[in-house]
């Protein structure tokens, strides 16, 4: 029993990342009808927003400390972050410690802008072209974005720690009445799951309860009619692209402490996220979220020792296997609608 709970928990954080990326992909696909292969790159850029922001915070200048001596007997040179001068040392340290959560604020405008620029600069010209062309050009864009990041940040993963408060693990076992230390779960993964749930909830609420969201939903159902009603639907769809980019970026920011950002993390997630979208059903937002969590949890169940003893290597292929079965038995995916992306 405790093993099952543990695996469900383990699946949640990966599932959250899949769900967030798949949600963004589906938003773009549902609104603009574009298959965006560069979405993984947006996730990666988000993670590097966290890196950049913590670098900005620790940006320092050198001060000569006369009271201390280095080993040669000269006055010691101390690196002092600029943020100390602004807020004093204690507050400055706290801010640096909280760099990752704070970079959410930094990454939202950045990602909105990146998304907006991408849509206006490139994707806009591909609405009328076949899906294969959209896949190819965004695939090329993904290569370019990831190489730019690699040029500036290097090829090695950059550790980006979570705030010290979240460094430990939470003992779920004690809470649920099992033996202590049987189910322990890092705090930050808990935070990640809560954050993902919040974002997903916010996106759904935005689409469901605001006028803007209503117009966007109407546009997803019938773009032409909405246009005929005198609404500039293109502009709203561009904004939705920005929002989708921001969702992917936020998923990346918060994922940075779990998996040190490197330039190819986006591609690694992209392939799986596409599988998630297809399993959930092209164009279905609840489907994307459901499939994200489902596949994340399935993956972690497949990596249990008991399962691996009977079916070795299952954890490596389970997602693809499920995708193949679903695609062949339920061609529209779990929750796909009729008429979306049917050939």
């Amino acid at each position, binding site marked *: 029993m405790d093993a099952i709970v543990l695996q469900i928990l383990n699946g949640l954080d990966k599932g959250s990342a899949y769900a967030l990326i798949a949600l963004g992909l589906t938003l773009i696909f549902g609104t603009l009808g574009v298959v965006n292969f560069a979405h993984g790159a947006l996730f990666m850029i988000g993670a590097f927003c966290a890196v950049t922001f913590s670098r900005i915070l620790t940006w320092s200048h050198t001060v000569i400390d006369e009271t201390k001596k280095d080993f040669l007997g000269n006055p010691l040179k101390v690196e002092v972050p600029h943020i100390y001068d602004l807020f004093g040392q204690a507050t400055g340290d706290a801010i640096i410690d909280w760099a990752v959560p704070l970079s959410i604020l930094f990454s939202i405008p950045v990602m909105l802008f990146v998304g907006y620029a991408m849509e206006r600069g490139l994707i806009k010209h591909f609405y009328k072209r076949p899906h294969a062309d959209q896949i*190819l050009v965004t695939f090329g*864009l993904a290569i370019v974005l990831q190489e730019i990041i690699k040029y500036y940040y290097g090829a090695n993963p950059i550790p980006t720690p979570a705030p010290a408060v979240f460094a430990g693990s939470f003992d779920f076992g004690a809470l649920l009445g099992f033996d202590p230390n049987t189910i322990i779960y890092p705090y930050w993964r808990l935070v990640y799951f809560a954050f993902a749930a919040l974002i997903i909830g916010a996106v759904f609420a935005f689409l469901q309860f605001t006028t803007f969201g209503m117009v966007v939903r109407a546009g997803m159902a019938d773009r032409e009619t909405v246009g005929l009603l005198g609404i500039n639907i293109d502009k709203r769809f561009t904004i939705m692209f920005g929002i989708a980019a921001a969702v992917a970026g936020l998923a990346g920011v918060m994922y940075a402490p779990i998996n040190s950002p490197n330039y190819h993390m986006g591609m690694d997630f992209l392939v799986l996220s596409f599988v998630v979208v297809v399993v959930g059903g092209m164009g279905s937002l609840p489907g994307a979220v459901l499939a994200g969590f489902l596949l994340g949890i399935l993956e972690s169940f497949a990596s249990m020792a008991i399962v691996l003893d009977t079916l070795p290597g299952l954890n*490596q*292929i389970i997602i693809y296997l499920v995708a*193949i079965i679903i*695609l*062949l038995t339920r061609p529209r995916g779990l929750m796909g609608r009729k008429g979306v992306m049917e*050939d």
Partner: protein
Amino acid sequence: MLGLDKKDYTLLLIVAGLTMLAPFILNPFPEGSGLAQFNAGYPDLMQRFVIFGIFAIGFNILFGLTGYLSFGHAAFLGVGSYAAIWMMKLLTTNVIPAMVMAVIIAGLFALIVGYVSLRRSGIYFSILTLAFAQMSFAMAYSVLTPLTGGETGLQLKIADARILDGALEAGEQARANLFGLNMSSSYEMSVGSWLFTFNTGYYIAALVMLASFYLAIRIFRSPFGLMLRAVKSNQNRLNYTGLNPRPYTLAAFVISGMYAGLAGGLMVAMDTQVGPERMFWTASGEVVLMTILGGAGTLIGPVLGAGLIKYMENILSKINKDILHQWFAFLPDGLEDFIITLVYPFIGKGWHLTLGIIFMMVVIFLPGGLVEGGQRIAKLFKGKDADEDGAQTKPAE
């Protein structure tokens, strides 16, 4: 001639001439000169040109003719490689059985994958093939280790069975050969300060490539090829005329898988080793890049694309900052540094960036790839009445 019309025959002859004379053509700069690093006429790279050429020609039969975008073609390359190396380990180091086996096994694998994947089209097809390829990669990496050697892959070993060859003498190494002709043997010809290398492996690979190219022309021009184009331009119409497109697409898929297997077998014949990374999805992405860059649906395009990408990978990536400084040494210092900072991100380790940008430009402005670019330039010179090249296919939507 050879069942080809005049235009195709000329094209085949040109390609044959270019591949046979490649050691000269790719080595235009004398040894030791500053430009010698642009020489591509060394065996390893030339072999890669033709092998990836075969891979791309095969991919083009599927994507260029039927429009089905497979994102998992590297799986067939990998399967072919594994089949070939097992033939070499168990039977003989002669490359012929290895290549035959590679083609057969890859074809069978493609039959299974294609039978399942071709039930869907569009993006679903791409995802299905991608899923199959990733599964093969993951399994070759982990579960199938006894068969694939896992992460380290497989090499020829002294202890291999080699039923036909018999045991090796002490100190002797197992080498891929063609009836005793060693694949890695080369004849070097020195003319003045030029050095030309004629490598056995390259010429065998080049002959195989010419044969596959000829076969591809025949497929393009056959009624079967026309059916495949019909699938691309309008599958519904095909259905309404009472034809089932599935057997045609499946046949194209299997043929293209066999081409990939052949390329994989040839790779093993050249370097006698194989690892699972050959099946990773980036390898599948690479062949997509090659085909699009050269021109999907054209005959010569994929070969050009494969050549260009492999050339960039090997030559552009070798240029470093010192070489740049040498080139721009004639400029005033400040300007020199400025230009080098501008150019540096695009060369050396950053060659992928250049590749990505070129690829995007091609998709955006030249959907027909380099071949279309060439045609446009040719048209400028010839004037408007010049008719279009026979290799060009226009999608009829």
